[in-house]
């Protein structure tokens, strides 16, 4: 179960933000990545919501500024990823 969530999470981050797996780190920010514009932001939210069957609040969406934030938000909904 855990392994599956981790796999899905990494797949989403890599594919939407165009990152290699070893580039995923908490302190990667929105400013660091050229691809991470408002459209990408929504695509990311949508992928996470659908993959984990959750619904992010408006605050959640605004709070996400780094990859670390994504993990934090997912944690809030009981999805633990490292």
């Amino acid at each position, binding site marked *: 179960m855990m392994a599956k969530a981790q796999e899905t999470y990494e*797949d*989403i981050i890599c*594919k939407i933000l165009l990152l290699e797996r070893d580039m995923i780190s908490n302190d990667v920010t929105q400013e660091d990545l050229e*691809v991470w514009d408002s*459209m990408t932001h*929504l*695509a990311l939210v949508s*992928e996470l*919501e659908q993959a984990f069957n959750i619904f992010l609040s408006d605050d959640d*969406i605004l709070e996400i500024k780094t990859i670390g934030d994504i993990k934090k938000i997912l944690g809030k909904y009981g999805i633990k990823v490292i």
Partner: protein
Amino acid sequence: MMNYSSIDAFHEQNDLLKLVRKEPTHRNYWNVYKRIKKLDFSNVEIPTHQRINIALLSSFTIDPLAIYLDIDCRLKGLFPEIYIAPFNRFQEEVINERSGLYQSQPDIIIFFVEVESLLEDMFRVKFPQMKTEHRQAELDRVIQTLKQLLTLIHQRSESLILFSNFILPAFSPFGILDNKQEIGFKRFYQSLNIRLEKLFRESKQVFIFDLNEVASNYGKDKYMNYPMNYRGSLLFTESFLPRASYELMGYINALKSKNRKCIVLDLDGTLWGGIIGEDELDGIKLNVTYPGNEFMDFQRSLLSLSNRGVILAVNSKNNLADALEVFQKHPFMLIKEKNLAAYRINWNDKVQNLIELSKEINIGLDSIVFFDDNPIERERIKTSLPEVHVIELPSSPTLFRQTLERMNDFNTLSLTKEDLNRSEMYYARRKRQVLEQQIQSIEEFIKSLNIVAKIRYADDLVLPRVTNLLNRTNQFNLTTRRYTDAEIRQMYSNSEKYLIYTLEVVDKFGHEGTVGVAIVKINSEDSYLIDSFLMSCRVIGRKIETSFLYKIIKDAQKKRVKNLEAEYIPTKKNSLVKDFYPKHGFQMLEKRNDGQSRWVIHPLDTKVIYPEYIQVVEE
């Protein structure tokens, strides 16, 4: 001119596209799209027929659809440039002559306009209390606006214009009373759509894209993305995007001559159920009632397409006379010979047949769609002739009609330059000639199948199947001796006198089951006779028959048998195997006037080498 980095860009694009081909998820489309955007094609000269400029004008954020359109074009071998007009600025873009829209020199302009963007914000609120005349006036006003807009663009641009119609709302403030109103809430949208269609029915340039129908077919509950619409004006759900793109590709394919023109059909198992060579005219499944009605209905849809100009042809492994008899005599065979532009009904390789068909009909292989129920034949065509669109037919024929009707490949626009010039014709001819030299050999093909032939003595469990095969097999059957179940059991229990072999075949597509039987009669210690030797025609042409025969020779060798005799008894159906024994090194002992022949091989003097690429499992 190409430089190295451009060639790399091509390769890289192909690698990336593999990902969406294999797994067409939204995530993968997104990823592949963004990565392809980073590739540098600047030094590549892309021929005009592969380029397409698309402009998207919409009242909401249409970017996600652009991702699908872009990739779907690339999967078709096109190189799209997509211009996305600024959010909800479609009117200004059309009116301003110097807008990005006109600068992008589009081949096709696609509008996605919500009618709400042309109505006041409080329209839905006020509608229940509006008088009919007021509703009518609003209708007229919207139509007038659109008419002006589209007329303007029509004057300024030569591109194809697709205007999406309006999705009828699932909601009405009137609820169950909506159609009791002269212009109900839903009727308001419906009237707009009808008037739009009428307005441009004669136009060769403006097409109304029936988005309402596309959304309905997909599901009105599922196409709209409420959360994302509020968050970022993204109207469509991610799962609806591929459907919308698929439908739009119908226009793009027609515009860029990527449409298909011809359906090539297999016969047994595709146009009728069963095998004509085995089941005979009254045994195949083709009827007004089940089973067989699904094939008749499939034929109706094929004929429906044929009547609008799609070419039908046949490519089948069969005796020509057997197959033609169905076309000529079967009461429920709806497709007749006259509906076929050409046919190849023989025992040749279907790849060769397809190439011949394309030459005879004079169309490119890339205009052909191939329907065949046999996955092996499909794979053979797919690997050898990648331009041919091979349909993944569902295993149940009850789904054939649906599969055909879901296709979006046969569209044409009256706008297309139909008259292809001569040079293009010669180009196609040249391409075909090159291709012929590249055809994968039958050996290579067999090798790729990973065939395992399991040859063993029959056991109790398989005896019913043995009887069944003995009595049903006509074509690959050397003696066509029919035995009852009791007779077979008699032989089975008399293992001093009879050896019953069965052949089971497995390949990378799965299990074919028991498909071959041989009965060897032990006349004496050093003389054996192959009394029966037969195989289902499903597996013919893959050299499995050779492995099967060699196994019998090899066993005889082990037993130090001096003479292994065999017979061929001709029937109306089995001319396919008349040279089977001489081809495998047997010498003739006798040939009678009625065509029967007797053959012999001396196992002790014979070196048995199984055909390559077939793994024989002896048990």
